[in-house]
Structures are given as C-alpha cells and as structure tokens.
C-alpha cells in the first residue's frame, strides 16, 4: 500500500526534475544566444543611461564638470519658463506630425492593401514607398531648400499664378517647414505597420460587411479601422518617439529659430554643460518612456509582427 502510494509521487518527482532540467537547459541556450545582444545593449544603452542619470546631479564650471550630488541642474530647469515652453513645443510637434502622418499613412496603406489586386504590384509599390527611408535624412531635408526658399519653386509658382505678390517668408525656417520635413521623413513609419496589419485582415469580413448592407464608409469605419488599430499603435510609437527625440530636423528646418528638448540638450552639449544636458535628457527620456509605455498597453508588439 505504501509502495503503491509512493510510486505516482516518485514518478511525478522524476518528471518534474526532467521538466526543471529542460527549463534550465532552455535558459542556458537562450542566454548564450542572447549574450551578444545583451552585451551590446548593456554597454551602449543601459550603462550610458545610468551615466546620464549620474551626471545629471554633477556640477559644471565653464570648462569642466565635477562629480557631486546636487539638484541645481533640475532646480534650474524646472524653474525656467524656457523649459516649459520648449517642452510644450516638443509635444506640439509630436501631436501635429502624428495627425498628418496617420491620415496620410492610413490612406496610402489602405490603397495598397485593398485597392491593388496583384501581389506583385503591391510589393512593387510598397518598395517604392520604402526606398526613400533608406536614403539620407539630411539630404532629404536639404532637398526642401529649392522648394521652400525665398526664391524657391513654391514662391515663384504662387507669384506667377497671381496668388501672392511678394514671396512668402514663412515657407522655410518656420514651424511649417519643420512639420513638413517631419511628415516627409516619418510618414513611412505609419505606412509600414498599418499596411502589415491590413494585409492580415480576412477579406471575407469585408464581403460580409458589404453583404449585410454596409456602405463603403461604414465598412471602413466599423470593420477596417478597428482591425487596423494595432498597426496604428505601432506606427504611433515610431512617430512619437522619433519626433520627440529629434533635434536635427528642428535645427535645420527652423534655421535655429524654434527649439525642442533635443535642441536644448544639443545646445548644452555645445557649451560643454554636460550635467545640465543630462538633466534635460533625463526629463526627455522619462517623458518619452511614459508616453510609449502607455501606448504599449494597447498593443502586444510581438504578436503583431
């Protein structure tokens, strides 16, 4: 009776040992495979962030920085209204760019996914949209000069059409040109994930909606948009992160007349004020991570890929 009582538990014990060994083995192989990746991320991501946090408490003279533990950098930032203005400017750029990239990106992805019928054409047109992303951002920014400049194509066209008498000054080096460049550079980050999600929508759902009497708009709004939400979320994460973290587009396209958080950091770096730059960087990073963290609650990225 005892023996009978023991046998199953002994068996259970043994199989759970095998199971544990399996898990441990999996983990060891997993760790070995992930080791190079982890190494890169620790050395070039985790440690640098830690360093920035540490240095944000340091002090600085005009030519050097020294270790300390003081809140001066934060106190200065949080009591200066420049910080708040620049902070809201950063959010403004992100919000407006997001709106435009979403509208354009959704329309383009919708066209490619539902109106192009052959797969070959879909791939060809999709590649056509993707290629500019693989060329230099700085060159793509420079290439707006002949369009938007005082004597540029836009002004001369408008003058010859009689719409305006004098060249418009705000086309280049303004908020307008900054946002135009953002939309130009980053719309692709909306097109790709939205297209990817749309391609996985079962086409029979759309037929079913049509059979049930839905109009084109109703199908779009009640079937396609809800099913595309994960793609929209991933696109949003890309666009928000890229615009919030940018400094080069704002500097180049506003002719140094507008600022965002990235520009504040870059200015401090140019003046060798690393502790102050680090404090701004910590605030920017916290904002971006909170925003992205919130967005990630609405989508499981790994499932959507």
């Amino acid at each position, binding site marked *: 009776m005892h023996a009978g009582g023991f046998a199953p538990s002994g068996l259970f014990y043994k199989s759970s040992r095998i199971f544990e060994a399996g898990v441990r083995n999996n983990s060891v192989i997993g760790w070995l495979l992930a080791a190079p990746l982890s190494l890169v991320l620790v050395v070039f991501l985790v440690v*640098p962030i830690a360093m920035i946090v540490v240095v944000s408490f340091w002090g600085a003279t005009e030519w050097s920085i020294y270790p300390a533990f003081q809140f001066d950098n934060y106190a200065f930032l949080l009591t200066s209204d420049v910080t708040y203005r620049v902070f809201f400017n950063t959010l403004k750029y992100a919000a407006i760019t997001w709106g435009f990239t979403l509208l354009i990106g959704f329309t383009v992805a919708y066209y490619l996914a539902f109106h192009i019928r052959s797969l070959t054409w879909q791939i060809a047109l999709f590649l056509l949209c993707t290629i500019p992303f693989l060329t230099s951002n700085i060159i793509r920014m420079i290439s707006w000069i002949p369009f938007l400049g005082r004597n540029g194509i836009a002004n001369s066209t408008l003058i010859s059409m009689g719409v305006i008498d004098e060249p418009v000054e705000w086309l280049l080096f303004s908020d307008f040109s900054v946002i135009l460049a953002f939309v130009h550079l980053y719309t692709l980050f909306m097109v790709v994930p939205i297209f990817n999600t749309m391609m996985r929508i079962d086409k029979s759902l759309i037929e079913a909606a049509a059979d049930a009497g839905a109009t084109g708009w109703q199908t779009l709004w009640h079937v396609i948009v809800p099913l595309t939400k994960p793609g929209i979320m991933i696109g949003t994460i890309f666009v928000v992160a890229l615009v919030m973290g940018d400094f080069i587009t704002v500097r180049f396209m506003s002719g140094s007349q507008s600022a965002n958080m990235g520009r504040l950091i870059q200015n401090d770096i140019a003046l060798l004020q690393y502790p102050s730059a680090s404090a701004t960087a910590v605030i920017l990073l916290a904002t971006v991570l909170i925003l992205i963290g919130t967005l990630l609650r609405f989508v499981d990225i790994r499932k959507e*890929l």
Partner: protein
Amino acid sequence: MEQRPKSFYALTAFFVLFLIFLYGPTLTIGILSFQGPGGGLTFPMRGVSLHWFRDLFEQQAVGDIWGSFRRSFVLGLMVMVTTVVVSVMGGLAFRKRFTGSSILFYLIITSLVIPSILISLGVGLIWSQSGLPVHWSTSGFGAQLTWTLPFALLIMFAVFNRFDRSYEEAARDLGASPWQVIRHVVLPIIAPSLIGVALFGFTLSYDEFARTLLTSGSYNTLPLEIFGMTTNVTTPVLFALGTLTTIFSLLVIGAFLMVVWIMNRRRARNGSDAGQGMV
C-alpha cells in the same frame, strides 16, 4: 474582373501625389546639381554643367568627403555583419522563453524609442570619463548598433512568427543535430529575410547621424561631414554631393533587392514540388 469603384481613382491620385511628395524634392536637387558654374541653390538653371561634381573631386575646400565616405562605408559593413549575426542569434533565443527574456525585450524597445542624442551623450560621457578616445570604429560602432539591432530584431521576430516548425521536426526525425538543423534548414529558409536585415543594417548605419555625433571622434562619417557642410557651403556642390550619395544608396538597395530576387528565382526553379499535387 469587377469594375473599379470611384474611390479607386481618387486614392490612386492621392497615392501619386504622395510619391511626388516623397521623391520630388530629391529629384529637384538631382536636377539642380547640374547647375551651371554661375548658378545658385534654386531655379532658374544658369546653364547645364558638371562643374559642381568636378568640384567634389578637386576642391579641398569641401573638406575630407572621400575620407569620410570611406569611413562610412567600412563602418556600414561592420555594422551590417554584426547586426545580421547578433539579430539571428537573438531571434533564435527569443523562440523559447528564457529567464530574463521579457526584460531583454523591453530593452530592445527602449533602444528603439530612446532619443538618439541620449545615446550619443551617454556613450560620449562614458568614453570621456574613462579616458578612452572616442572613435567611429569603437564608440561610434556600438552607438549605431543600438539603432540597427532593434530594427533587425523586429524583422527576425516577424520572420520566426511565420516560420513553419515542421521543417525542423522533419530534420530532427531524420537525425539532424541541433546545429545541422540551423545550418541546413533554418538558415536557408530565412536567407531572403537576412538579406533584408543586412540591407537595413548597412543603410541605417551609412545614413546615421545623431547617434554618431558625439561618438565618432575627430574623423567624421559622411553624414556628419555633410551636416558640417550645410552650415558653411552655400553652392550647389552640396546638391552634387547629395545626388552622389543618394545614387550610391539606391545602387546598394538595388543590389540587395537583386540578390533577393535571384534567390527566390533559384528557389522556385530548384525547389521540390513534393506535396503540391495534393493541394
């Protein structure tokens, strides 16, 4: 074939406008780089010439663009190879849950969304505080990997999500060792995607600016050199350089796409048709 709805034509027009928006400016500087010697940064063209391209090869005033091109090219290759190897290993690791895998996943996402200038600043600070000289092939190389690896891993996740594991099981049933399964079954199947990852690795590195800004040291990469030029060069030589480097990027993209295309063709020709008759 059923008739196209009216919306098709409206959307086609929208798509064409979008393409003009994407490519128009680049084509414009392409045309303007052939500006005559007396021409400026905008239309009208004052004659047509190769003057500004010649300037790129002769004038020392444009800085060390050929040196920086060489550095960017070598760095691009280094980043490309590392990105492919590390992301394949990472992709294989993530196929099974392992202790710490979710932390690593969130680090990848962080690496993707973190403002680039923070990487530049942080890596620059570490190098300067520990007395190491920043150099494009060490600190610059690592900083760029934090940008290329997340993209590569997202692609690898997508690839392995669609991977049919029964091929591996079949190989194991035939007695293949784990390494043989990867070498002779997994890698050949995912090869076209790896070409894509390599393309991303090279071009993202070749065009990378913000993460290299404070980490490349005294020898500039090409994007840094071009950015330096935007502040003090006001002649179409800037456009000539932009045109050349864009053409170079397009050639690289074309070469990679060609390889994928040839691979797929060979696969279609030599592949087995086993099982096709059943469907």
